[in-house]
């Protein structure tokens, strides 16, 4: 005999106002119902301040604050896809994505998918803006200029810098943003419980984000990458390629490549076969692209044309992989998938249930886990310029 784990608490007692809201849910669709319901709800108990470009320091505790949090996320996504597609109102964002846009321009499949997703994210922004306004808020209008899609908080050289040149990293970041969107909405459902119309609308946005994430994962065509989130966040299961950078350090050049007295090329993540680019050297032959042929802690051998020439060590030189996500970016990815290995729901570990043919991995896949507000802020903070969480 099994013990029921389901709450038997009764429905919220009916009232005229509640009935009115329920009729609104039934009769109207989309933004109408949310706005009507919001108006019917009247004042919101905790009118938190705007979640401005400086990310709010506290998790949202009101319906409106949840929507403002979601609004920031949707703006990040919408502006990202607009920049990728060359449709941002911020010309510099369009320009910065020229290389990757050219690279994907021959794939009707990729373009179709990104355009469809962009359309939805733009619609979500408009929907949430109306809903927040209906709840008495005054949502700001974000522009492309307020985001740094390299994750560099305005430097333009963040850990995802290759997003602007490499379709692999472009779709990898899209996956992280979509999965984060799914998990972020899920993390806020408790706060939305009291407002049934808004909860329903949020869930209907949330499942669209899940569709996006699944499609992007399949589009990426990475071996073993599934359309559902698997139990760990290793490079294999997320399909996010790690890159490497020395950062701005003292480096010398040799006839076979690059050398350093302190620090380690190995620790920095360099590996044979990576395409890299060097900068900061006086001899122009030592700058530019090459491919790693051997790695030790202090020496990086490369295949380069023109070949490298001996040059004494000096500061402010950088060797960085052309593609891949640096260690700081991998930390973001790891956070984006944190907690997904959970298999216990409502107090029951689902792994041991009958007819479970998927094992622990299957159980992990079968449930998308929520992210906390703090998790989400950690993930997005360096994509929002000037954020100081």
């Amino acid at each position: 005999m099994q013990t029921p784990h389901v709450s038997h608490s009764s429905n919220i007692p009916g009232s005229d106002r509640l009935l009115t809201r329920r009729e609104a849910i039934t009769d109207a669709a989309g933004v109408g119902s949310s706005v009507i319901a919001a108006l019917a709800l009247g004042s919101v108990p905790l009118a938190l301040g705007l979640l401005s470009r400086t990310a709010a320091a506290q998790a949202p505790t009101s319906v409106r604050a949840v929507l403002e949090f979601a609004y920031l996320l949707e703006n990040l996504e919408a502006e990202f896809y607009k920049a990728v597609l060359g449709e941002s109102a911020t010309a510099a964002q369009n320009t910065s994505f020229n290389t990757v846009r050219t690279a994907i321009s021959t794939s009707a499949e990729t373009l179709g998918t990104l355009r469809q997703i962009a359309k939805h994210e733009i619609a979500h922004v408009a929907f949430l803006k109306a809903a927040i306004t209906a709840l008495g808020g005054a949502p700001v209008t974000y522009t492309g200029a307020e985001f740094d899609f390299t994750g560099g908080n305005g430097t333009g050289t963040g850990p995802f810098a290759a997003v602007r040149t490499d379709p692999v990293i472009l779709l990898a970041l899209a996956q992280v943003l979509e999965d984060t969107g799914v998990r972020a909405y899920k993390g806020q459902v408790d706060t939305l419980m009291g407002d049934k119309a808004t909860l329903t609308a949020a869930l209907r946005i949330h499942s669209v984000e899940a569709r996006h994430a699944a499609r992007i994962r399949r589009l990426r065509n990475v071996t073993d990458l599934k359309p559902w989130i698997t139990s760990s966040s290793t490079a294999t299961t997320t399909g996010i390629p790690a890159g490497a950078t020395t950062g701005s350090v003292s480096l010398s050049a040799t006839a076979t490549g690059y050398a350093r007295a302190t620090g380690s090329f190995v620790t920095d993540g360099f590996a044979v076969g990576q395409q890299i680019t060097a900068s900061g050297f006086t001899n122009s032959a030592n700058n530019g692209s090459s491919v790693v042929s051997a790695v030790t802690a202090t020496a990086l051998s490369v295949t380069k044309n023109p070949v490298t020439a001996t040059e004494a060590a000096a500061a402010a030189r950088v060797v960085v992989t052309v593609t891949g996500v640096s260690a700081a970016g991998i930390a973001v990815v790891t956070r984006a998938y944190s907690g997904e290995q959970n298999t216990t729901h409502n107090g029951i570990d689902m792994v041991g249930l009958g007819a479970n043919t998927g094992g622990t991995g299957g159980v992990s896949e079968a449930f998308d886990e929520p992210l906390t507000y703090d998790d989400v802020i950690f993930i997005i903070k360096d994509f929002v310029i000037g954020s100081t969480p």
Partner: protein
Amino acid sequence: MPQDRQTLVIEHAEQLLGVTSRRDFFRAMTLGGTAILLPSVFAGCSDEDNGTSSEPGVKVATLDLAGDVGILNYAYALEQLEAAFYVRVIQESGVAGFNAVERRLLQDIRNHEFIHREALRALLGDSRLPTLRVDRGFGDTDFRSRTSILETAQAFEDLGVSAYNNSARYLTNAANLRLVGKIVSVEARHSAIVRDLLDDISANTGRLFAGDDIVDENGLDSKGQPATVGDVLASARPYIETTITTINQPV
């Protein structure tokens, strides 16, 4: 003739349900062959109504939708239907011409639906709905046809997403709401992938996963899908032989 004798390994109870494997089973028996029932067959049969055994399900059921138990039982009914469908899909997927990658995706989906069903079953305990009797033909599904299978799968997944999205608001316990949230996005992933497998080369290539037929102009899911419990169950009726009477429908 010894060379005609067959050994049939039955790993899962559902294999006994499939027309193909059942035929193989009797052929093997007739020819003096051996059927090996692995322990996993019985692992799934530990209870009287686990939904994967050959137990046919009830003819009549009353679905009391009151409270969180009611909403979760509603979900349990739909998950039973989905799980049973994918059992059949996996059995027939070779015949229908799915490639290895597609079969893997469909097997994953089947596993997820099993787990959803078993999770709800465990949560509901003795308050659960009995095992329903599903229509083994799943309406007009042609199991020799990849397209037909995927179209039925799409219908089930889209219906499931809508059912969760539109009934979650009736839940009064936050843990139950969170659980439903964890499930619905996985159902949406299923829908996206099934739709993706149906997508073809056209001006709209790469869009069907979240097509304009299912996502509305506000970017909200479940456009045009039945929203109320009654309408969802009416849509599912062709696939369920059990006569379900609902009481205490939430409004």
